[in-house]
């Protein structure tokens, strides 16, 4: 059974369409990065998966059930984001203590160890925490639930560099000992690339790519050479990005294929891109990028 099965899911707010037609499947126990630009619809998608919002059309199945208002899905999934709130009348310590009643697999030991490591004040109230500390607490909460589907929406917002590194390390170590399906959304792929097995690239409310990180990396390459040559080599190919360097040379990002090997033999300068670069170019709105502005 797929953990997540989305078929043509759409969701609109007033006039804009946050999700147009999302279709993808998520198989068991992978760390998947939900990547996209700001406003691509990542947050909306995660909220739908967590059952917090209702989708407009299409079909969403989490653990084989429609997540909206479903107790089983709620019990087995958690969405950690910066909108997570807890009542102020309870201290952080009390919050952690009330969690096991809800989450059957709650790991109190992990929670308290992480809590101590990150030096959070157990007598503090959730809303009084600084942005970074709140994100840290939410992360500890999310990890400790050990939910079969654990979702993080921009989890490191507000965290400092050291905490980010620690967080990703903690996530990975916990995942190794307790494999489960983890979704991390971020617009900063480079930071989480090494953790991921799969990437779900969302752009304008659609799934652009859903593949393993290495496939994504090989999805597109940059070709550079004299304008005429480059145009000849990449004729008929989908060009994601192109720019002219010093008037004579053309730099294009195109879909990778075997024919480019011939171009290389003909003297093309072919550059492999990092996964985050691929994602960036694939989701860019204009072919020329920022350079177009300065033309």
């Amino acid at each position, binding site marked *: *059974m797929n*953990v997540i099965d989305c078929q043509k899911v759409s969701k609109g707010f007033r006039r804009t369409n946050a999700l147009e037609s999302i279709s993808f499947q998520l198989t*068991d*126990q992978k760390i998947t990065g939900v990547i996209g630009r700001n406003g691509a619809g990542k947050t909306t998608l995660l*909220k739908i998966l967590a*059952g*917090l*919002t*209702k989708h407009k059309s299409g079909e969403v199945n989490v*653990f084989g059930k429609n997540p909206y*208002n*479903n*107790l*089983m899905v*709620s*019990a*087995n999934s958690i969405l950690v*984001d910066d*909108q*997570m*709130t*807890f*009542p102020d*009348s*309870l201290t952080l310590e*009390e919050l952690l203590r*009330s*969690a096991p*009643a*809800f*989450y*059957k*697999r709650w790991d109190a030991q992990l929670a308290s160890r992480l809590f101590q490591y990150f030096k959070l004040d157990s007598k503090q109230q959730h809303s009084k925490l600084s942005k970074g500390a709140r994100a840290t607490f939410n992360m500890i*909460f999310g990890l400790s639930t050990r939910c*079969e589907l654990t979702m993080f929406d921009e989890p490191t917002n507000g965290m400092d560099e050291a905490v980010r590194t620690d967080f990703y390390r903690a996530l990975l170590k916990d995942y190794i000992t307790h494999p489960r399906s983890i979704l991390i959304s971020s617009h900063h792929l480079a930071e989480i690339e090494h953790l991921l097995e799969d990437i779900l690239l969302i752009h304008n409310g659609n799934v652009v790519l859903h593949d393993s990180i290495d496939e994504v990396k090989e999805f597109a390459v940059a070709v550079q050479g004299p304008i005429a040559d480059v145009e000849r080599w990449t004729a008929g190919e989908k060009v994601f990005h192109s720019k002219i360097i010093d008037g004579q040379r053309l730099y294009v990002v195109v879909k990778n294929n075997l024919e480019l090997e011939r171009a290389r033999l003909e003297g093309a300068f072919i550059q492999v891109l990092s996964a985050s670069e691929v994602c960036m170019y694939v989701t860019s709105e204009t072919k020329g990028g920022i350079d177009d502005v300065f033309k």
Partner: protein
Amino acid sequence: MFLSNSSLFSVVKAQVKYKINAYNGLIYSLIILQVLGIMLGGVAGSSGTSINNTTISLNTSTIDLSFIFVSLLAISVGNLITTKAYRYDDFSFVATRLSSSIANCIVLLIFSCFAGVTTYFSGYVMRLILRVNSSYEFVDSPSILNDPLSFLLTIIAIITILWMFSSIGYIAGTLFQKHKLLFFGAVVIMVMLLIAGTWVRISEAIFVENGSLLILAMKTIVITISLFVISTAISKRLGVRT
């Protein structure tokens, strides 16, 4: 893949426990209002007459003022827990709108029980104070032991009415969360009914023509539960963290 199966019952139980812990700061509001009720009020009815040049006045002290204050509190609390912040809090843990509504309903009932019993017994604080302080002659009043049935029925009536007030606050809050216009629409309808006098007739039919506290309590419970059911139905489509 290991999926834990939570029953609605266990989730509601956990939520109720958690909410009672989370909202137990309400005790201070309750204490303040009851103390205020004792201090300001007490004398709910005062009757006087004169016979043979002797003026006789009898002041009857009841817990009415505390009860009215606590009723206001019940409305406010019912309203407060429907607000966004409180709904968000629910969904940081396992919850569905159904479980959340049921838990709210139960929590409000538990709070009403507590508030009802304390309101009733705050009358005894008043008795003791008046007994010590009163310069007048003191007339003994029926105590619990004299009339246990009346004691029981009065407490039940107080509790159910507080619960009903909280459900009124709850449905008002839910309507407001659902759509602000809906809320104002409901208020306008209420005011219209009030002016037309229909409201008085309705409430008379419900609350006056009873004859016994038990029937009153029953009617109140039915109204309360239907209000909660309607609220739940409305909130079912309400988004969380949108």
